[in-house]
């Protein structure tokens, strides 16, 4: 296209060419000075934004810090309460100890039933044999752990050993006394001799 158009250019009348050139070169009216935005509101806006931002950040940070302290406080409270709950739960469990319940029941005069009969209500029947609740089925209460057998044996052995030692000591004492007596006798008889 440009090849086809190129030869035309020189054909243009110089007048026209002149005209165009002139039009192009015509001094454009000086651009109107850009409308001056009032300076003050802008400065105020920017300052406001800046101050607002800074203050907001400060407030935000402070409140975060504040809530961090509060969190720590509440956390501590939660820990204390949890520990308290655990302590109470532990007390409850200790009260549920079968040993304790058995002891309390015994204090109230309760016993383990020897044998119970069962009622079948629809058939109006009694199954099994009821027996008077005496103490025979109630295992005795013992201290938490009665002395183990091995400890009892050890104690017995110790007692026996102690007794044997005592006996031996007594025997030795007697022997010494007798020897002393004999000695004395001998010396006295010797003197007599």
């Amino acid at each position, binding site marked *: 296209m440009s090849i086809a158009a190129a030869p035309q250019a020189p054909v243009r009348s110089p007048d026209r060419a002149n005209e165009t050139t002139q039009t192009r070169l015509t001094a454009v009216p000086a651009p109107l000075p850009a409308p001056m935005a009032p300076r003050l509101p802008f400065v105020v806006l920017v300052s406001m934004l800046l101050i607002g931002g800074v203050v907001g950040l400060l407030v935000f*940070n402070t409140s975060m810090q504040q809530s961090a302290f509060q969190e720590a406080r509440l956390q501590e409270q939660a820990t204390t309460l949890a520990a308290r709950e655990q302590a109470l739960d532990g007390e409850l469990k200790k009260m549920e100890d079968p*040993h304790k319940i058995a002891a309390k029941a015994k204090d109230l005069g309760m016993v383990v039933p020897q044998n119970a009969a069962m009622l079948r209500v629809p058939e109006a029947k009694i199954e099994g044999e009821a027996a008077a609740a005496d103490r025979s089925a109630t*295992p005795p209460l013992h201290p938490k752990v009665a002395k183990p057998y091995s400890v009892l044996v050890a104690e017995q052995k110790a007692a026996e050993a102690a007794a044997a030692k005592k006996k031996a000591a007594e025997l030795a004492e007697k022997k010494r006394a007798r020897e002393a007596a004999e000695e004395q006798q001998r010396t006295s008889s010797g003197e007599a001799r």
Partner: protein
Amino acid sequence: MAQRQVKRKVRRPARRPAPRATPKATQRRGPVHIRLRVGFILVAMVLSVFGGRLVQLQGIDPHSYAAMAAAENVVDVVLPAERGEILDRDGEALADSSDGLMVLADPKQTKKDAPAIAAFLAKELGVDYASALAKLRKDGSRFQYIKRQVPATQATAAVEKAGKEGYQGLWTSRDPLRNYPNGDVAANLVGFLGNDGPLAGLEAAFDKHLAGKDGHAEYDATSPVSGTRMPLGTNNRVDPVDGNDLTLTIDRDLQYYVQQTLMDAVQKSRAESGMAVVMDTQTGEILSLADYPTFDARDPAASPKSLRGSNALSNVYEPGSVQKVLTVAGLLDQGLVSPSTRLKVPGSYRSGDADIHDWYEHGMEKLTLAGVIAKSSNIGTVMAANKYEDGQLRDYLSAFGQGRRTGLGLDTESAGLLASPEAWNPADEDRIDFGQSISVNAVQMTAALNTIANGGVRIDPSLIAGNATNNSGIEVGTDTADRTRVVSEEAASQTAEMMERVINDPVNGTAKQAAVPGYRVSGKTGTAQRVNSECKCYDGTTTVSFGGFAPTDDPRFTVYVAIHNPGNGGGGGTVTGPVFSQIMSFALRRYGVPPTGTEPSKMPTGW
């Protein structure tokens, strides 16, 4: 700062084109170019110091200072995982954890007030005054344990109060607390936790299952002391993984009753020790496994080490006549005998190079097989068992679970002793027929008897409800319990009826004391000589036992009681029979099992 001073010096001549006004001053300070040069040198020196420092900080060791700066305010706290609880079948805690603290002291700070602080601690924490005083005064130490495993509330309160009263140098640290609210109830199974780890029982065997994994939290704190979190700072958190609970098949209240009843029987018969097992017939769940003597899990140190586990699992012994039940059940299963098979039982029987005798003197006796069981005749049993072909008895006993561990999950369990096929010989077999030359643990024996109760199907006994993996990586529990048929249903029910005659036959029965009024009960006595571990011989002491189940025609519970070395010379019927009766009666009542209402067996025992 230094730079600015230098600059001021340098600028000064420019600000004062002074030579005009005061030529003398210029001369005093020297010519301009000298002052400039001195100034530049100073600047260069200062700058090179800065440069050197820069290279040192950024080039040689760039991270350590950054790390130090970060560490200044970073707090890393351990988030403790809670150890799982050990629960009974109803969810009652047998062992549970709670927050505990250790109270520590810095003797350097406590030394001056030691007597006052020791008195204070004795009052608040119940520690011994003298030993606390010694710790508080310890020279050259900055760390002393005052008391470990104190409940958190108590420890915190005490240390706070100490602070208020002006005592310095006390603080607390985490020390989780393990509670055993029931003391010795099931302590033989549960075991206990020492200060630094599990030491016995399920606590040790299932430590990995129970332990859990501690997490930790790392964050910037306003100060390392207060630990207040700094918002928007570093915050790395790994949540702790709590341990798993372990639910047992044990029934706590039944366990208590069994333990107390057993203790009473052991003490009354002046015996050395005893054990009792209660098993749910239909599920193989162990409802109670009692040992006496046992220990208090809250104070394990008060008992010798040998008692801090379950002897019912770890101790093996010769089962004695209870074993006859298994011998006979196999014979019935093979169709070699029937309960009414007639036997002429002589007073003595030659086996190998020794004679076998019965527990009572007698001439020629006419007993049925049921009578042999009821009267517990060794000779009768051996005569009947001679009908076995080689190897058959061993196969049956092995199928009943003898000679192998029951797989409850406790590593302390002993497998017992069942002679290998190679070592098996006829003379030994005759003795095995009635429970000698074989050793078992109490749970093995219970599971074997339970096979008869459960219509001939053996169920692996289990102690764990559901399933759990122990430290050896073995999964155990009710979910994994296998069921295997050992003898036919008919053989099992015939055996059960013969065992009923042990209790209800007025003439030949050996254990009338084991009866539970209103119920049909099957059982078998056992009185075995004990093998002394030192001389490897029978030392004249005995193990008396009684195993059985009820109701005979629809069994719900299998109970087995064994008592070692009763000092009163009693046998299986007199010593363990009443214990069996009490435990069975309690269990039937507790679980609301009605009597079956059928007629008790009247199988003939003699002819």
